[in-house]
């Protein structure tokens, strides 16, 4: 059962809030080591709840969570949060110190590291999020996007091997979203971090996610590789989501106009390649 290839493995999770709201029922979820998984769901489907349960901040009424094969309840808190980094949806929830440097140092200091190591970790974490220049700034003078990056740096400074982020791109402008995705991708590819990324912005996912898990009303609708899941028109519609815009454009061209496109492209780059394959070269102004 405890497959060593899994970083996070959850089985049959059910969770109800004290007021009786059933936020999760029978949720299975897994994250392989080094994988970048997106948790895709519309508002109120239980993303935040699932993240809290995975992080041991909410106790599920049913089901188990294993982190690297070990049962969640058995792992001491101090060790758990050096393995699992959780970034919350709203940055003001987790930025509680007065300045950026102090806030990022909070975690490492809790680990009892000596001041020099703390310092090093803080600058590394801020560097990784391109936020080193913010170090001496007061939190309440930061923009929202900067706050989001600093919040991630604070978690990163604990040196976790799994990073769980609740809507890290929500509320960011297009370039901010892209910057965030690139930074996370870099952490995943170069740093070897396994990442869970909760979101409902479907257009970003094909750029970064290896696998996607779709959540609807507290249950898992579908989990699989990004390509399989993001092309599943019917299922996404059921979950209150849609195809990425490029994909739906090409799908309509295919279905309604009979344009002979192979497969379903998910990104602009892919779509361009597919289209160039079928557009006769003589009508193009510029030759590749």
């Amino acid at each position, binding site marked *: 059962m405890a497959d060593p290839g899994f970083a996070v493995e959850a089985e049959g999770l059910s969770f109800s809030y004290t007021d009786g709201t059933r936020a999760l029922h029978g949720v299975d979820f897994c994250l392989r080591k080094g994988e970048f998984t997106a948790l895709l769901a519309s508002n109120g489907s239980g993303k935040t709840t699932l993240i809290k349960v995975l992080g041991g*901040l909410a106790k599920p009424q049913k089901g188990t969570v294993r982190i690297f094969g070990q049962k969640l309840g058995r792992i001491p808190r101090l060790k758990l949060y050096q393995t699992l980094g959780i970034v919350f949806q709203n940055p003001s929830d987790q930025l509680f110190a007065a300045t950026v440097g102090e806030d990022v140092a909070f975690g490492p200091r809790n680990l009892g590291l000596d001041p020099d190591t703390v310092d090093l970790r803080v600058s590394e974490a801020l560097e990784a999020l391109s936020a080193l220049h913010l170090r001496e700034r007061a939190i309440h003078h930061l923009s929202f996007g900067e706050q989001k990056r600093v919040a991630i740096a604070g978690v990163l400074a604990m040196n976790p091997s799994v990073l769980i982020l609740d809507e890290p791109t929500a509320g960011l402008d297009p370039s901010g979203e892209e910057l965030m995705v690139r930074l996370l991708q870099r952490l995943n590819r170069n740093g070897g971090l396994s990442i869970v990324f909760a979101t409902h912005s479907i257009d970003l996912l094909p750029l970064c996610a290896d696998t996607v898990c779709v959540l609807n009303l507290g249950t898992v609708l579908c989990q699989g590789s990004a390509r399989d899941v993001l092309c599943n028109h019917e299922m996404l519609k059921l979950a209150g989501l849609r195809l990425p815009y490029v994909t739906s454009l090409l799908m309509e061209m295919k279905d309604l106009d009979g344009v002979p496109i192979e497969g379903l492209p998910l990104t602009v780059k892919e779509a361009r390649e597919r289209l160039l394959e079928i557009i006769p070269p003589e009508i193009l102004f510029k030759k590749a």
Partner: protein
Amino acid sequence: MTFELFSDIFTFRDNALRRLDPRVKVVVGLVAIFAVVSSQGVLFPALVFSLALMGMLLVGLPVAFMLGRFLAPLGTVLILFLLHAVLYGWTPLFSLPLFGQRVVIMQEGVLRGMHLACRVLGGFGIMVLLSSVTPSHQIFHALAYFKAPKGWLEVAMMMYRYIFVILESAADAMAAQRVRLGYCGLKRSLNSLGVLSGVVIVKSLEQAQRTHEAMLARGYKGHTPFGPMPALSPKDGWTLGLSLGVLIGLYLATEGWVFG
């Protein structure tokens, strides 16, 4: 302007006083303030006030900001001066007609009033200067170094940080009430303010819960660890010695301990 927003923008501006070690600033500031309130004469507080004023001009505080800060103490100063001039003392200086009566201005009262006024200005000057060149987290850090109770400091830092967060949502909530005419007339204003206070408290409680979760996720065990304080640089040491020396010298000279 609905809330008395506090401005800590200046504390993050770089200048000579800002770079000074916060421990030095806290010690010198407190010594100066307590020397001012223990003074018996006009001269010492007046000198301290002019030094503080020079400091504020030196670090480039805008005059409008300074005036804003000094409005309340200036009002107090004026009242205290008038009250003492009229009501205290036994040597009449001169008299003024007021509402058909003659108000006698007393010499001792004028002196005492002036002294009180100078004390307020001197103390205030130091306080404003200190808080305009020292960010609050540095003040807390210095207090931690001086062994202020840890629980108190932790609550203080938490409060300081979240005042800005809660203030933002409170201001939004108030604006939302205002645009729906929640503040027309006393009764409705009061009702809106009551609801707003309730909202603010409930929001803060919920925020506390979320913050606590986030703290747990970063290894919180019930107390916040402080970073170490760097050793005092020679320059800080010199500044500390010099400013304390000047203060004490001025105090002894003006309070009549040396030349009296």
